[in-house]
């Protein structure tokens, strides 16, 4: 079946300076009820992997270094 990749802007921004995933933190990954966040294995920083966000904020509230910013998804903004 022929396929293509569509670009989408995602609502979660990670401040890579502040993120301490390289020190083993995975708090946001565990918080997200929809399991949308992951750690980039090369950069060792958190990022939003899937565009399925409920803008519910546990990731942002639970992050120990305030590295996460959740915006309202563009389609609803």
């Amino acid at each position, binding site marked *: *079946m022929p*396929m293509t990749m569509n670009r989408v802007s995602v609502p979660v921004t990670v401040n890579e300076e502040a993120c301490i995933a390289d020190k083993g933190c995975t708090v946001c990954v*565990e*918080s*997200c*009820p*929809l*399991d949308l966040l992951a750690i980039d294995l090369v950069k060792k920083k958190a990022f939003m*992997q*899937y565009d*399925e*966000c*409920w*803008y*519910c*904020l*546990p990731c942002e*509230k*639970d992050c120990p270094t305030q590295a996460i910013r*959740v*915006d*309202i*998804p563009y*389609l*609803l*903004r």
Partner: protein
Amino acid sequence: MSDMIAEVDVLVIGGGTAGPMAAVKAKEKNPNLKVMLLEKANVKRSGAISMGMDGLNNAVIPGHATPEQYVKEITVANDGIVNQKTVMAYAQESFNMINQLDRWGVKFEKDETGDYAVKKVHHIGTYVLPMPEGHHMKKVLYRQLKKARVEITNRYMATRLLLDENGAIAGAMVLDTREGAFGVIRAKSVILCTGAAGRLGLPSSGYLFGTYENPTNAGDGYALAYHAGAELSGIECYQINPLIKDYNGPSCAYVTGPFGGYTANSKGERFIECDYWSGQMMMEFYKELEGGNGPVFLKMDHLAEETIGTIEHILHSNERPSRGRFHEGRKLDYRQGMVEMHISEIGLCSGHSASGVWVDEHAATTVPGLYAAGDLACVPHNYMLGAFVYGQFAGQSAAEYAMSHELPAVDAAQVEAERKRVLAPLANPDGLPPAQVEYKLRRFVNDYLQPPKVTKKMEIGLDRFAEIRADLDSMSATNPHELMRAMEVHFILDCAEMAAHASLYRTESRWGLYHYRVEHPEKDDADWFCHAQLKKNEAGEMTCFKRPIEPYIVELDDEEKDAYNRLRVVKQAEAA
């Protein structure tokens, strides 16, 4: 590949609100039981109250309301179609549960004398108890889970229940949503606490996950119960809510109402007497929205600065805290403008309406060994406190059942068939992406099932759903996360078909907008004063049938029966 296999006494599926309570209560009943709490996300932040809740909608507190009054209120709000015994069981336990939560450290609003500060939002009685600091609810529950030594299994989803040769519960089949491995959990009894079917209709924004309910609640439990042969009830009594347009979350009239905020039309005028969410209220809302006075707003701009500050604090820190961010983006200040509202997509939920898995006053379903609590268990308008109370009933009942039953044998044929079904999309690299199938399915739900309900449209909808059912076999998943979504599409389709069948079955209108059938616009008590049940029959087909309403234990007088039909504000004749 060999499957992961676990053996427990009581398996609780869903760790949001009812689930943790059920697990704790099962352990309290008998600490020797092995109780497992299975959660698709992480119990620390899962379910409808992942960020807490701003209040109790249905607190029955001595001095403010009696259980009898509450049973009356819900009977009327649900247009007479209730098993009053289930509502009464809730109402009688409501105050004990509040006190227990208070002891566990939940902070309720209290007055100067230390009594609960209850507010009036409903049409008849007084039941709303604010929790301005309610964002810590999940932490409180988590502490109790640890204390009770409940075994927590995060990031697993149940895909089907396992039955023994007599049709009683034998456990559940599960998917590890991070590793993509299939597994079997053998259990003597199972409690379903998987929440609403919240990913049914498509939000008007078109964003699949911009739903009112936590979108991880895809109707899992409705489908699990259905395929296990359980009866479901009132599926035609959809959940439809008045929400902040685009943001698609509550605004929320329960919070603002006691402070003097209200639902208004474009002229800023009040048009409904009571902001309590009911089908009748939604019908008035719908008429106003479609009529010349629309759209509809939540009005707070007439309130004092201090009051608005308090409202903002509550609304922007609980339940859906990103509300504030949304308003900021639209440059809306409650002091200067009204909040534009609209009508949500449809869902199934007994917490808000009455669509759910049939349970008795002990939280037992019609399948031996299967219990249900929370948004998916059919106890009308049960909300969060009802989830806790029925979670308690379910935990106690399921523990008792487990204590008097052996672990049933596993039927290898069921396991084999399910493993094949669940893992198929991973083995199919070149198929339909689940997100695309889901989008199309949910758009059809809007096109054909959203009220006003039209017979021909619902029939066409069923044809489209049948085509999508054929597409399910050609879905592909490139990773375990996508496989989880693919399995959820199966649940959503089951729920869509249930919604269509149940709505076609009841040939009358009831519950205001929730079940407004254009060809049968009147309420028909002669034929339809009954529950409409739905289940899978012996031949594997979806069937509907009537279940008589148990004699009321609290009688209503005629004046009360009609209360929710008189929600529209009557303009007083000008004094001469």
